[in-house]
């Protein structure tokens, strides 16, 4: 992957953001206050940028968290300490400092600037994605492992007694139940991540907040922030809906429903 490739992908995404933006904004032109209607398509672009960033970060973070929770639950003892330190570090510091440390801090070292990874670390979007992923993975690991620890001990013994190895036990017994029990907490974490994703605007990413800040610095009109707030609330509502639908349709007929909880007592 060269920089030109990245650039073309980036412009392709921007292209359809603005296409949708035009489709949404032209009918609304008369209704919106005159101070935001010229910037409407920019806000829509920001809306989709934020959405993509958060969705990708959540998916990657979930995969990472699943792996780390597995290591904590059944992995070698040696791997527990580093994971715990990682989780504590990312939970104990503000996400803003993590973003700035990677984006502004790493630029201090010459050898990183000259290495191949600079294509990623030099661009705000990628740094944002990486940091949001790592941050959310820490929180999700904590949620998942807490939920696994809360499962009745008999489950582990039962799985062991029917001859499952630790890996199968985790994948077939522990994880499916843990994720169902902790789904509300995970959804909550998703919404928190959505809200902290506004901070990537400080490392030059033009997400919803970034666009709102740029427009505000030109027009000095608070309505722009009102529009951004409305779109953020829309995103929050959408994520709540998705979390509810996943819970409803994927987790319904499977264990840890009421009948299962009855027999697992």
């Amino acid at each position: 992957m060269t920089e030109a490739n990245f650039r073309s992908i980036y412009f392709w995404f921007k292209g359809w953001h603005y296409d949708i933006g035009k489709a949404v904004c032209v009918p609304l032109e008369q209704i919106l206050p005159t101070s935001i209607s010229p910037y409407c398509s920019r806000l829509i672009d920001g809306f989709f940028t934020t959405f993509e960033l958060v969705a990708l970060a959540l998916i990657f973070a979930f995969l990472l968290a699943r792996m780390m929770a597995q290591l904590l639950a059944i992995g070698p003892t040696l791997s527990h300490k580093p994971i715990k330190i990682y989780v504590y570090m990312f939970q104990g510091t503000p996400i803003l400092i993590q973003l700035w440390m990677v984006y502004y801090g790493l630029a201090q070292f010459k050898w990183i600037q000259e290495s191949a990874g600079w294509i990623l670390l030099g661009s705000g979007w990628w740094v944002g994605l990486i940091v949001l992923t790592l941050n959310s993975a820490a929180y999700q690991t904590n949620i998942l492992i807490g939920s696994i620890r809360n499962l009745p001990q008999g489950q582990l013994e039962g799985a062991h007694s029917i001859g499952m190895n630790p890996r199968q036990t985790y994948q077939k017994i522990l994880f499916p139940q843990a994720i169902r029990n902790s789904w509300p907490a995970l959804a909550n974490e998703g919404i928190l991540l959505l809200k902290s994703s506004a901070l990537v605007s400080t490392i030059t990413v033009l997400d919803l907040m970034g666009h709102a800040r740029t427009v505000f610095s030109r027009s000095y009109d608070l309505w722009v922030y009102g529009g951004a707030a409305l779109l953020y609330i829309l995103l929050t509502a959408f994520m709540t809906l998705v979390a509810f639908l996943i819970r409803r349709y994927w987790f319904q007929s499977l264990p840890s429903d009421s009948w299962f909880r009855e027999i697992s007592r």
Partner: protein
Amino acid sequence: MTVSLAVASLIIGLIIGGVLALCKIQPITILRGFAHGLTLLFRGMPEFLVVLVVFFGLDILINTLLSSIAMDLKISTPKFWAGALGLGLIFGVYASEVFKGACYAVPKGALEASQALGLSKLQTTTQILIPLMWRYALPGLMNLWLVLLKDTSLVAVIAFDELLRTAKVAGETEREPFIFFLVAGVLYLLMTWVSDQAKIRVENRVSLAGRN
């Protein structure tokens, strides 16, 4: 600076949270709807947005007020209080939910007993409900405090010189941003660690008090 900012927002937030929680548990529909609407609004908005809106909003508000009374001077908004108000609002909205839950956790018998004693509604609230509620609210509030401590870093963006911004500026002048951010990160970790320990102490104490 970070700690004093956090404490100031904590105090503002507790006041806002208390008022909102009282609005939520009393029977007048309009007030209740208002409090719930405010909660919904602030929980859906990023903290960063709230801080910026409060800062610039206060700025515009103060300047329009000044020009409307025909005073020809520009006052820049005190960043400390703008930041504290923004963070306090966020804290207050979350705290109101904690308080509400805590109020429902207070045993009904205590309230009924106070009515039987002939205390007025106001007296019941101030002398029975609020003292009893603290025990249930404290663990939740400690969690919020941890979140607040981390959110104070947002104020760096409106150029208030707290820990993170100091680290950034110092790092830029010394041309070693990574080291300074690292030190700031360690300081934040230290603060959360201390709060964590305090939280564990408080939780133990509260649960012990509940058992007696």
